[in-house]
């Protein structure tokens, strides 16, 4: 079974530029998560999709961050314009649904994209 795929693995941009990250979850996983992991900290959830609908985006800085999952499969996360404090690893994760339709507790993570904003 292929894991969660993310690209690019590394990205360096200047502040005020824009950047986009891509994630392809495990096949069949309905729920997709984007996390931001600042160096030395635990991951923080930015946005959660179930199929192509948003479940939770309460911690997404909506003035500069946007995310979409148009067909309920892969997803893109965009930052425009980037700030120095956006330097972090952006992790994508996915999970399946249990037989009762509830979200499975186990999340599978991708390798992450390390963003450096200079």
């Amino acid at each position, binding site marked *: 079974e292929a894991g969660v795929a993310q690209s690019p693995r590394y990205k360096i941009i200047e502040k005020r530029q824009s950047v986009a990250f891509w994630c392809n979850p495990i096949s069949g996983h309905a729920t997709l998560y984007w996390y931001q992991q600042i160096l030395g900290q*635990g991951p923080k959830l930015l946005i959660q999709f179930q199929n192509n609908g948003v479940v939770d985006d309460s911690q997404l800085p909506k003035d500069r961050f946007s995310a979409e999952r148009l067909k309920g499969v892969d997803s893109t996360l965009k930052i425009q314009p980037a700030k120095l404090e956006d330097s972090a690893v952006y992790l994508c994760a996915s999970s399946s649904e249990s037989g009762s339709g509830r979200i499975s507790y186990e999340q599978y993570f991708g390798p992450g994209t390390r963003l450096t904003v200079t």
Partner: protein
Amino acid sequence: AQTVTQSQPEMSVQEAETVTLSCTYDTSENNYYLFWYKQPPSRQMILVIRQEAYKQQNATENRFSVNFQKAAKSFSLKISDSQLGDTAMYFCAFLGGTSYGKLTFGQGTILTVHP
């Protein structure tokens, strides 16, 4: 809101010895899940072990076991017979029963296993 605290930024252990990583959490929920995730230097996060709050028995997965103290809101991870491959950042994480999948992570503990 739930919080997860890992008070040990770094730990080290000799190969083949046992080490315990600490985690405390705060919640008003009664039904929830707790996890330990491992993040090796390559950054891919993997699940090590999970504990359902309604289960009194501590979870065990091979060399990994937990000490779950619900009243004290404590959830420590014990790694027995430590191996060099156990070197990684370890995160404690909380999932509320009504959180629809939203994990809350602690700050992490860097574990180094020395030969």
